[in-house]
């Protein structure tokens, strides 16, 4: 279990307990948090679950695969700390994680 803070583009914060094994994307979608669309349901096929990982958490969330990087390359408003949240698996090590959503996923 990890407590994850999702921050919408407008600043609205949602703190959610997410089960280990789920993705950061699933934690948002299953709790109806706006800002993460995840159209493909986590197949790394659509880049609509783009988030910015807070600086302190970049190492712990790992590095994106080549597939994820290529998808992110063409997402809007990409930053060095951009990730696809369907590719970040939740574990105890991510307790306290903070991610921010972009203005739009489309």
């Amino acid at each position, binding site marked *: 279990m990890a407590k994850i803070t999702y921050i919408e583009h407008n600043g609205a914060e949602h703190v959610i307990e997410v089960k280990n094994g789920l993705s950061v994307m699933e934690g948002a*979608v299953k709790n109806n948090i706006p800002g993460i669309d995840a*159209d493909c349901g986590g197949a790394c096929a659509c880049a609509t679950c783009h988030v910015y990982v807070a600086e302190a958490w970049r190492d712990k969330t790992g590095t994106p695969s080549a597939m994820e990087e290529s998808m992110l*390359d063409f997402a809007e408003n990409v930053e060095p700390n951009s990730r696809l949240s369907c590719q970040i698996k939740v574990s105890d090590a991510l307790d306290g994680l903070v991610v921010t959503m972009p203005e739009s996923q489309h």
Partner: protein
Amino acid sequence: MMIDDGAGVVIVGAGHAGGTAAALLRQYGWEGTITLVGEEPIPPYQRPPLSKAWLKGETDADSLMLKPESFYAGAGIDLILGVRALSIARSARTVSLDDGRTLSYETLILATGARARTLPIPGADLLGVMSLRSAADAETLKASLGPGRRLAVIGGGYIGLEAAASGRALGADVVVIEREASILARVAREPLCSFLTSYHRARGVAFEVGATVEAFEGEGGHVTGVRLGDGRVIGCDAVLVGVGLVRNDELAREAGLECVNGVVVDGHARTGDAHVFAIGDVTHRPMPLYDRMFWLESVANALEQAKQAAAAIVGRPSPPHEVTWNWSDQYDLKLQFAGLPFDAEDILVRGDPAAAKFAVFHLKGDVIRSLEAVNAPAEFMAGRLLIGAERPISRARLADSSVSMKEVAA
């Protein structure tokens, strides 16, 4: 029995489209009632994994759910499951259900989806002859796959190929039987068709192309083989029929709404009745980029129209039109598709099919109309933007893999 529920939004069909529309209405601030009626006994779930990750056992049933069951009560969405809508009385604005209830609506969203087409041939009712559309279908299919089990797939479309790949992953012997001369004849072109045929063959899938199916043979009520037009019988323990969809537009048709192989809607998912919307697989919808009406069978379509309907109902600006897209997972291949090849004059291949990393672009002049990408996410992402922009590109640069897609799109 009439329930006076304040006449809010009633959504008929609790699939990906209906479930998303309900959640979006609340997310967009809709305060009226929302009633979501579904024929299946479980809350809205994702169908794509049923032939992919779920079938292979890589994800569990829980992860299929669009939202946890507790979400609906928490969001004030009245979920009525295992119940079928029988008829719509548009003048009274009511929907009759098969449990005897009648629901009033101010706004009705039809999200009745589609069902798998069946084959009207002898033996179609044998045990072991199945379709793949619902979670229940997928459970049945999964139970019949395993080491040494023989699966015959009728129809070389994406559902059939995904099931073939998943079946191989579970150790089953798989043969794909296709009526046309090539698999994917209805939806793709060379070199993708040859590439996928070879890829599946190399992983143990057998193909019978240009083969008609005359009958299913059985013993003791269970299927034992597929009899082909040339008289041969392909022995099997299970048959998956994947030969396309039939749109569930009967409810709309009987209510007098215009239907043309699906419920006709405008770019806001509205039908001709201002109180009735239709979304997802059941619709026949405008395709602004291609200047025509068409029907789509995809999650992307379900989501786009759910957004259109929810936005129209709460009075938000309509979302921008999207370039339609879809995906498929087979073995270690990530296939991604964007656009539709309407009016395309020729194709351009970028990358190397032999390396299982390439994209096929369908062009009209120098404008990309659609694409199929195999393990080529940059081609998919950039190509999708270019399709939407309708901007001419340099064919020489597009064909040259040493020029990045960023530069092609620049």
